[in-house]
């Protein structure tokens, strides 16, 4: 937390000191939020045999940011229902389990279970079978 604030201050100073050049860079940073090479590398691992246009990488980059924002908004609502002042992991996992379009995350953001409950479930399944 404390590391973030001075950074912001520095950025503003830089902007003020060399106006136009930094303004352009800042705009560029806003447009491509994640490093394009990083996004491209992640995409390449799915589509190694085909080429990917720069436009497509840009769109996926932007879409991933919008996805984080959407996911955050949904988790925030869950957090409000819970009347908590901090965003917990279980807020995210309950969004994933409740909304159908987040199904693709179900293996990566699973709901946490207590060892007791998990054991009971396992016994119920395997005991019966």
């Amino acid at each position: 937390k404390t590391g973030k604030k001075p950074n912001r201050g520095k950025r503003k100073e830089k902007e003020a000191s060399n106006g136009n050049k930094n303004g352009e860079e800042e705009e560029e940073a806003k447009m491509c939020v994640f490093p394009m090479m990083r996004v491209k590398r992640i995409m390449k691992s799915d589509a190694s045999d085909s080429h990917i246009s720069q436009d497509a990488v840009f769109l996926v980059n932007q879409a991933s940011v919008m996805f984080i924002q959407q996911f955050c908004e949904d988790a925030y609502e869950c957090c409000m229902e819970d009347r908590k002042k901090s965003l917990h992991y279980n807020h995210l996992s309950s969004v994933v389990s409740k909304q159908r379009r987040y199904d693709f995350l179900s293996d990566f953001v699973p709901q946490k279970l207590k060892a007791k409950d998990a054991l009971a479930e396992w016994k119920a399944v395997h005991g019966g079978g």
Partner: protein
Amino acid sequence: MEKVVAQIEELPRAIVRRVVKDKLSECCPDYDINLQKDSLLAFSESARIFIHYLSATANDICKESKRQTMNADDVLKALEEIEFPEFIAPLKASLDEFRKKNAGKKAGASKAKEVNKKRKTEEEPSKKSGAKSKHSKGDQNNEDKGGAPGNS
């Protein structure tokens, strides 16, 4: 080795944190919402999985139409397919902006050489215009001087 590969494929945590923090302060401007460490990790991982999911879907669409290069339309169609259609309109707008900027950059790069050539030719007219301005100033001075004796 595995660890290194994993790190390369991860999204920068600081950027994910900023996006989430900005969104949270937008949702709730009254007070700061704490972001737990494992929540941030989950956001970062989810975004990475989202990129995989989206690009894999776009790649399928691309292959169906028997093209070799995945383009913007493939990604937009893929977004509809994975049930995030509300992203399409704002993305189209920012894509237009991105294309304009890239077009400007390319034009700028190719023109850079021409600009160097032009500089030499431009220097001469600028000298002439400088000379002209001096003349005009001189004219004004003359007029002032000419006016002064008339007044006296």
